[in-house]
């Protein structure tokens, strides 16, 4: 698998995801600066977490208009897999690669902690090593993770298997009590219609090593390597 990580001014999870990718791929991903306009032949593009452009204006809004994103959009339309994590998810929504928006958390505070997610669709390149209904533990760290989309689109997304993960409890039960940010339908991550683009607020790269507390996140990178190699 050939992978690249896009680096914006203010990205701060670019190294973390590169470390996780390397552990699964056995090779370092390419790091691409936001002012670049071309990408080489790739199987996976990762848009990492952080505070691109300081999150000024609106999270992800300015990054969505940076030079490299035109190329990322073109590749995504051509079928290259794209993974957006946290700020990367916000950027993919702002770019129009994914439906919906990410609003302020309902209690208005930044929140950093482990959460449980229920896997909603395992028939994608990102989730081969999970089973639908599985419960996985990923950390979240965001102030704007409250996913919202119009109800009509939401129903379509549900019918089309575009909901990737929902916030749940340790037994996989989804309820308002397990919703950390107010997201519609407890949604933690979504796919585009073709399931080639995934955006999610939780950070799989942060639990990809036993010493850090678990490897649930590593399985996502292993899935991608398996699917795209």
């Amino acid at each position, binding site marked *: 698998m050939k992978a690249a990580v896009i680096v914006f001014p*203010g990205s701060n999870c670019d190294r973390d995801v590169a470390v996780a990718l390397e552990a699964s791929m056995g090779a370092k991903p390419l790091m691409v600066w936001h002012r670049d306009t071309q990408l080489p032949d790739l199987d996976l593009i990762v848009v990492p977490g952080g505070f691109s452009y300081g999150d000024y204006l609106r999270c992800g809004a300015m990054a969505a208009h940076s030079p490299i994103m035109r190329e990322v959009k073109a590749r995504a339309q051509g079928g290259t897999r794209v993974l957006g994590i946290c700020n990367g998810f916000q950027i993919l929504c702002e770019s129009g690669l994914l439906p919906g928006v990410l609003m302020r958390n309902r209690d208005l505070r930044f929140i950093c902690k482990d959460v449980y997610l229920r896997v909603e669709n395992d028939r994608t390149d990102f989730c081969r090593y999970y089973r639908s209904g599985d419960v996985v533990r990923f950390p979240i760290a965001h102030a704007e993770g409250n996913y919202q989309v119009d109800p009509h689109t939401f129903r379509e997304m549900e019918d089309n298997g575009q909901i990737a993960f929902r916030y749940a409890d340790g037994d996989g039960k989804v309820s308002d009590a397990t919703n950390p940010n107010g997201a519609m339908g407890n949604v933690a991550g979504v796919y585009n219609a073709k399931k080639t683009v995934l955006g999610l607020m939780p950070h799989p790269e942060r639990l990809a090593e036993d010493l*850090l507390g678990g490897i649930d996140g590593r399985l996502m990178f292993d899935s991608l390597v398996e699917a795209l190699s």
Partner: protein
Amino acid sequence: MTQITPELLASHGIKPDEYQRILEIMGREPNLTELGIFSVMWSEHCSYKSSKKWLKTLPTTAPWVICGPGENAGIIDIGDGDAIVFKMESHNHPSFIEPYQGAATGVGGILRDVFTMGARPIANMNALRFGDPANPKTRHLVAGVVAGIGGYGNCVGVPTVGGETNFHKSYNGNILVNAMTVGLAAKDRIFYSAAAGVGNPVVYFGSKTGRDGIHGATMASAEFDEKSEEKRPTVQVGDPFTEKLLIEACLELMATDAIVAIQDMGAAGLTSSSFEMASKGGLGIEMDLDAVPMREEGMTPYEIMLSESQERMLMILKPGKEDLAKAIMDKWELDFAVVGILTDTGRMVLKRHGAVVADLPIDPLAQASPEYDRPWVSPAKAPVVHAEDVKLVEPTEALRKLVACPDLASKRWIYEQYDHMVMGDTVQRPGGDAAVVRIHGTDKAVAITTDCTPRYCQADPHEGGRQAVAEAYRNLCAVGALPMAVTDNLNFGNPEKPEIMGQIVEAIKGMGEACRELDFPVVSGNVSLYNETQGSAIQPTPAIGAVGLLPEVGKMATVAFKEAGNSIVLLGETKGWLGASLYLREICGREEGAPPPVALHREHRAGELVRQLIGDGMVRACHDVADGGLLVAVAEMCMAADGIIGAELDHPSTLPLHAWCFGEDQGRYVLEVRDDQVATVIEEAQEHDVAVRVIGRTGGFVISIGGRAIPVEELRSAHEGWLPAYMGGEMSGH
């Protein structure tokens, strides 16, 4: 020219005798810009004029110390060519006036101190003291400070991995916000601030200079009064996004060989950075203020020199490296300007619109700033409180109250607002004895803690100073780390009062004794005085930040009990010391008594023993015994467990039950040990001459002692519940 009047001097915090000295140094009357420069350079905040004499008595060297106090931060050698750069610094006054920006810029400032030296910041910590929860301002200050620390640290992408938070009415009008940064550098790529090379360019980079924060250093050196909130414009505004760019740009430039010397612009901005660099190098600077990137039009030389706008740096470049440096700053979209040149005159000559607007000798300002031997008196010793004179409350009931009291209640509400995992090396998250952060790409790690028990320091600053250092030492040992060095953040009241000066002197003496005995040198620090509002001082708070080394991170210990059916072992002696304890304060409503004495030689032996046992894999869990005493320590180990693990405890008949459960005797640890290893642990303890006793077993769903029991779940909900409920406005304190 502005007339120098007594009122003008007073508004600049310059005392009459100091002004006489200024006249001698200048040989003439200074102009306003020059006076402003003297004022900030000689402020307590920049000059340490009241504390210098005593700070010099602290031990600052060891074979592993690369750089002690005097630079931007302290540096220690952790082997394999790696160095750890760290420091703690206060931002107390600004945080009280404007909690979000005050705390945020506190984090920004301490980060710059560390990356200025060539280190990538790898962890932030913070030690916070707020007023009585019942005080109407406290909730707003907690919310603002926590949001400010998070807002800044989260954005720059440095994990905030731990700290401590206390509440006490003495901080009602003077909260303390002490922020610490730990960075990682290559031992042979460290950058210092001493200017060198006459003719070399003096370069400004980072953000533009605005009118914010003018006279922040002077404000931080005065008592508060009812008008202090009018000083809000002197609080700076932080931009963490620019700081993140500055970190990356600095580290990229530092990887080249362009830089001679570098210094961040902290308190007193362009003034202190330029004077310190020139003074350390024994040189002069000629600076053209027109070249300084400015945010506003029409700024005067006074404003340019005294601005405390954030995210700015000053450096001396090697000749001909300007284009290389500028290209890197352009990439990161930062301002860059050659603002001056190094001279051999030993003078700071400032020009604006072609005219000389200030001409000052550098050394008398920077190095020969006043040093006072202020009068001091030792505080009277508080009497020893005997256990038989303390009310006996049923221990499980007292425990339930203690784990939910403001000082001991879970601080999850705070640390969940901090990104404590970014950078992917946080191996031990907040909530344990010390945070553990792996050195990226290796198997070793640093352990980090901040500690101070202000109520002990109030009762006896000397013993309190010893205890703050000893507790930091203990917290590092408790995760299995070898304690290496200390940064101190000394927060006190007005040093012009002999009884306050006495607290400062005694606390520093106590700290020095502990640091010497424990091989734990002080490598950096910061002093914050005048923490008084309307004549009422804070409890003396010499906060200690400390760093230890774990050679094999996989062997570290954590506080959480791991499984049922193991032995609970207590190391160290228990005499049942209830004076100045949390039991006495929270359960009996008495703030009195001498604090528990610290036996440093025993502390050293117990620390060695604990590290050895952890390294040998004899320990399933480890926790030091601190605030609240033994029963609280055991309860914290139960509450930290994954799932529910209770504890069945016995107690000796020789001590009253409350003294055994809640006495705060020092130098103790609780271990969880597998039954087949208990004999070895006891043997090792005896060999190290450390008192040892099996006090119970893990298991069940309750903590039981003396025929009473309380469910772990009940404790957990009390412990976790207090802070969210308080911040949600559900209660007005305790």
